[in-house]
């Protein structure tokens, strides 16, 4: 009984030391990465990534000041594991200031000691949030005459965007997608929303750690957008 207690205490201490180290590392790089990063998507392959990997991404992103982090569920197994991911994030969050919002779960708040703390929203996305959702929108348009009003024969992208916005939650377009392994593929991630998204490889061997996470953010920082000009 006593030994179990000691083990638990040691575990918590160890956790605080390693996680805090990483948090300090991330904090040190925040001023150097200046390009706006509101929405980060990680392409998750549950065969390679653990819930701990993902929970740490949430913590680093919270500390970094990213407002939205989404996990794209390639294999379809992550959504079933959402509860466990939440628990894992809760575990990793201990002692870290800031607020984590989860669509249908309680907010994870923390002490901020008077320092303004960040807020991050976490989402799990899947194939069904992409093409199938656009199909639903097109079906609505075909049934509701008021939705099919257009300035010329054919919708402009701005016109269709207005209708699509009504069925998508107000999450900004992803700025950055992180993928691991040699293959870069969208796997059907939000086709309407990724026109300007940068695709950056976090690691070739599917590992996720604070160093390759920051390395990817540095690569992202160097990409410049020209909007066709």
């Amino acid at each position: 009984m006593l030994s179990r207690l000691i083990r638990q205490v040691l575990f918590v201490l160890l956790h605080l030391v390693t996680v805090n180290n990483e948090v300090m590392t991330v904090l040190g790089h925040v001023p150097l990465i200046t390009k706006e990063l509101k929405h980060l998507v990680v392409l998750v392959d549950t065969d390679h990534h653990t819930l701990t990997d993902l929970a740490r991404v949430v913590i680093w992103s919270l500390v970094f000041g990213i407002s939205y982090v989404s996990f794209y569920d390639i294999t379809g197994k992550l959504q079933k594991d959402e509860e466990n991911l939440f628990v894992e994030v809760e575990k990793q969050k201990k002692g870290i200031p800031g607020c984590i919002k989860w669509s249908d779960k309680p907010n994870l708040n923390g002490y901020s000691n008077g320092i303004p703390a960040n807020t991050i929203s976490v989402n799990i996305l899947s194939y069904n949030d992409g093409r199938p959702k656009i199909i639903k929108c097109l079906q609505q348009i075909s049934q509701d005459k008021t939705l099919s009003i257009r300035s010329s024969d054919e919708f402009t992208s701005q016109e269709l965007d207005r209708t699509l916005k009504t069925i998508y939650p107000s999450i900004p377009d992803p700025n950055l997608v992180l993928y691991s392994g040699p293959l870069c593929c969208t796997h059907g991630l939000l086709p309407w929303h990724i026109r300007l998204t940068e695709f950056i490889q976090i690691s070739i061997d599917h590992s996720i750690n604070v160093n390759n996470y920051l390395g990817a953010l540095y690569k992202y920082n160097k990409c410049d957008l020209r909007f066709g000009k």
Partner: protein
Amino acid sequence: MDGNRRYAKKLSVKTSDGHSKGFDKLSETLKWCLDLGIPEVTVYAFSIENFKRSDEEVNALMDLARDKFQRLLDAMDQINDWGVRIHVAGRMSLLPLDLCKMVSQAMLATRHNNKLRLNIAYAYTGRDEISRAASQIADGVNHEDITTYDINEELVSQALDLGPPELLIRTSGEVRLSDFMLWQTANTVLYFSDALWPEFTVWNLLLAIIHFQRYAPPPLPQKDNNGNQDEFLQKLEEKRLQQLKNYIECSS
């Protein structure tokens, strides 16, 4: 095809020289694809967003397109000999009428060729392509050619200008789609090459192909069309063909 302007800057020559070098590279790359037996090639030549560039540059690009399409029309025998089908994807109504006419002529004259299909995305964005397909589908329901329940992923895919690519190469170190083939790339190998487009070599192409051969994901399951959908798509094709004929007539 990205990096023409950076290439021009690197060599301290005019931007338009960079663009014309880029065009030369396109014909070279097509030759490689023909030799390799690739049956369909799509290039992103001009985005709707590119209209925001300076008038001078946009005009120079339109002139370049006029010049190339004229040469293409002049060399029609050669193109038919190679069996190349030319297809321009984009919102044609945004183009100057004379260019529209040339494009339509090239598309009509080559539409029965089947050795290599060259799609040129011009005045194109992926969102615009989806929007135009959505309009046609909404009209299809209105005219009772199809019902709401006939609208599915396969129907949209087939109502677009461009089919799904297996491999997409982005040059010049950019790592985004820039509004290109957004719908179609769900199962595509995205390959980012650091080479500027005018400096792209056959080795860069072969590296991309080897990468594709090694890592391509398994194909997505497909649903067959029902009768309504087939009929609607056929009507749509006829409508688009008629539109091309109209462009030729109204400007002559």
